[in-house]
């Protein structure tokens, strides 16, 4: 029995884990880092620099995948909570504050459930169909401009790409419905196919007028074209197009009142009837990612994308003020910076605490100070945010984009809380008899107007 052996034996379990980790950290880590920096690093950087487009694409894909899950979680929570409130219920309130972690826990639950393949199902297709549905939903994120410069790939045919990829999801739904070996699933898949194919046409035609106006199919350029006041948004130039797009997109995403393919009171859960576990989770996530996508598209096409509704610089100019331009460089303050950091919180805390202390003599000093500190934090966060908003246009764009998108998500959830669903023949009749002529009319009027204005 050697000394190291005995020492090892005396260690607790935690020690036995930590000691090798320390070894890795202090011995292997530096060596690897050195090798990475000296040998692999330059080679890697060369590779990245020479293939910048691919790297950008991969990063965008990764970001999009990472973003889609929390977006779906937020929308699921929002749906539960908003519909509950409209039903005069409270909704989820057990996990997290006000039940905010409910959808996260539900996601974990879906992960841990048994992944069941029914007897008679075509197991390969059955397994891959949800993946296809989810991927088509996520891939659409790639061309959505979240803010100035915040776009995965600025394709010049972004709009076409969007509809092409979005239309592919129907293949996934059809496969899911067919492979389940269930009649409800089959009916659901067929309904989804009929519905999505029918509504694809008015959906695409409704934005052709917009393309004529903008003269481009790049989503980024469409967003840029709507800069300025909110009157510049395309919804005011294409109101009919916006309405058609809204309705057709609702049907495209299988949302109430057009959720025929998963009409629970008729065909149980449609194409998702036989799914369980994470495969169901994929279908479920894809549905909510689709909700976000149609909201984002509505925002991008018709509601000014990431542009603020008010052109603040124009307002300032009207009052004879210079446009705000913040070029704050903390380094220029020199020794003032640490002093500022040290002094400002204390002074502001005291300033905010003073009214509480003075207004009511019964308030203890520590309570007043606590309140003051909290107020100071609020103000400081607000000020920092304001600085960032003014200083970084991409952040401002992101904020506006998400505000508008989630407003539309709210509208979709609101509709789900209010409407019953339409019948399948009424749904198809509506698409072919009303939406298609209306979108053609919209296209015609837009083209005529452009010719009249140009000539």
């Amino acid at each position, binding site marked *: 029995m050697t000394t190291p052996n005995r020492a090892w034996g005396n260690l607790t379990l935690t020690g036995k884990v930590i000691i090798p980790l320390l070894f890795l950290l202090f011995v292997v880590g530096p060596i690897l880092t050195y090798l990475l920096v000296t040998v692999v690093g330059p080679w890697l950087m060369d590779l990245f620099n020479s293939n910048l487009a691919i790297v950008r694409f991969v990063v965008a894909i990764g970001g999009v995948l990472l973003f889609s899950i929390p977006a779906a979680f937020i929308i699921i929570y929002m749906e539960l909570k908003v519909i509950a409130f409209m039903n005069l219920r409270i909704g989820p309130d057990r996990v997290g504050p006000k039940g905010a972690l409910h959808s996260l826990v539900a996601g974990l639950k879906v992960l841990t459930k048994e992944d069941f393949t029914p007897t008679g199902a075509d197991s390969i297709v059955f397994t891959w169909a949800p993946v296809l549905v989810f991927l088509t939903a996520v891939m659409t994120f790639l061309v959505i401009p979240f803010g100035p410069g915040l776009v995965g790939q600025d394709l010049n045919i972004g709009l076409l790409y969007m509809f092409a990829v979005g239309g592919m999801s129907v293949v996934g739904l059809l496969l899911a419905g067919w492979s389940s070996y269930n009649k409800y699933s089959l009916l659901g898949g067929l309904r989804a196919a009929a519905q999505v194919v029918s509504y694809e046409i008015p959906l695409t035609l409704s934005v052709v007028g917009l393309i004529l106006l903008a003269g481009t199919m790049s989503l980024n350029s469409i967003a840029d074209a709507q800069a300025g006041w909110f009157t510049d948004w395309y919804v005011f130039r294409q109101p009919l197009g916006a309405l058609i797009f809204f309705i057709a997109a609702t049907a495209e995403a299988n949302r109430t009142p057009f959720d025929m393919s998963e009409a629970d*009171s008729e065909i149980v859960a449609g194409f998702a009837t036989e799914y369980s576990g994470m495969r169901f989770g994929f279908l479920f996530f894809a549905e909510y990612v689709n909700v976000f996508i149609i909201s984002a598209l509505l925002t991008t096409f018709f509601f000014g994308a990431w542009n603020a509704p008010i052109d603040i610089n124009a307002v300032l100019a009207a009052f004879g003020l210079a446009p705000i331009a913040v070029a704050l460089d903390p380094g220029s303050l020199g020794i003032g910076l640490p002093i500022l950091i040290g002094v400002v919180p204390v002074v502001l805390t005291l300033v905010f605490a003073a009214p509480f202390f003075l207004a009511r003599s019964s308030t203890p000093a520590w309570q007043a100070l606590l309140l003051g500190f909290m107020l100071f934090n609020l103000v400081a966060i607000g000020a920092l945010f304001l600085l960032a908003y003014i200083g970084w246009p991409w952040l401002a764009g992101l904020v506006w984009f998400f505000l508008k998108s989630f407003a539309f998500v709210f509208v979709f959830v609101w509709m789900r809380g209010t409407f019953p669903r*339409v*019948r399948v023949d009424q749904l198809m009749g509506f698409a072919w008899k009303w939406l298609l002529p209306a979108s053609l009319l919209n296209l015609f009027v837009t083209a005529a107007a452009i010719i009249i204005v140009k000539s």
Partner: protein
Amino acid sequence: MTPNAQTHQHPSLDDPRIMLDDQIGQFEAVPPYPPRTEREAEFYSLRDGEMFVNMGPQHPSTHGVLRVVLKINGEQVVDLDPVLGYLHRGVEKLCENSDYHHIISQVDPLEYVSSLFMEWAPVMAFEKLLDVEVPRRAEYIRVLTGELLRVSSHVLFQGFMALDLGGLTPILYSFIERDEIVETLAAITGQRMLFNYFRVGGVNGDLNHEFMSRLGDWMSRATKQVEANVGLLNENEIFVRRMRGVGVLDGDTALRMGASGPNLRASGVPFDVRRAHPYSVYPELEFDIPTRGAGRGGDSLDRYLLRQDEVRESLRIIDQCLHNMPDGPITARLPRLLRPRPGRAWAAVEAPRGLYGIYAISDGTDQPFRMKIHDPSFVNLQLVGLLMKNNLIADTMAVMSSLDPIMGGIDK
């Protein structure tokens, strides 16, 4: 192990090889025995392009454990075959083996959303067997609580109707209304769902302060609240378009099919037991029998709207009951063990779903010799075979829930 090796193990259930074609066929709706009747043989033979779909017994919208085998061609329902019995408890046999007081609790869960009516008809039948005069105050209390429950039942129907058509919200509003009514009733009956309140010769408890205050509270805003809630549906184009012209039933057919209640009145036949064969104190009360769809036949929307008219009439009746409520005893004087002399009695009341009747035969003992329960939902459900044919699958929901079946009563 070679493929030909003899193994004496049972094949694992996960083994995909045990899936034979024959076993796949077991998932079909076709029963595993030869047809018993002409009609069954006709139904279970498929033509080209048709297939069976089992709707139920576990299905989100069959109002309980009803199984309907649909024969569909694409989205169109060609024919259908309702299969009952999943909730059969043998209530009639139980009643034959319980004494007259026990029966009240036996029949209570038949129509579990309007259980007071389920007690009313047996109690009336036994009163006829015993030749008992029920005190007027008891009769007024019966009418008052009954009409309250009718409102709750109809309001709940509207919610379920919307739920079956995909609307999530109205059902919750309905349940809030129902909850208030049921809490009000719980103040005098003690229970919220199966009240077990009527007794042979009277009722179990007198009106109390809590009941009256809750009822006054509710009545003061009932009309407004109910109207506001149905506003979500009545004016909704999607809802109206799905209901109009679906499942048209003309009055003569409805009578021939034995339908009763709102389903019959929505076809233009003003048959309401409260007026057609008055019982209790209904002759003294003023109310109308609303009808719709006379001449053209009633569709699902008529059946839906008629129940709203009935809610208004019920509110009128409740109001009159509160104004005319006489003083006096609430039960007749009766021995604890009832032993009517041999005889037969038939009593029928107008339950929210239609004519609910009891045919009781006494043989002189403390238990009825035979007690037949005639449940309105059972007869009304027959109409689905008539109304759903050649409609879309989506319309089956609009039709079935407009008939408002309650499986507890259908399966007895």
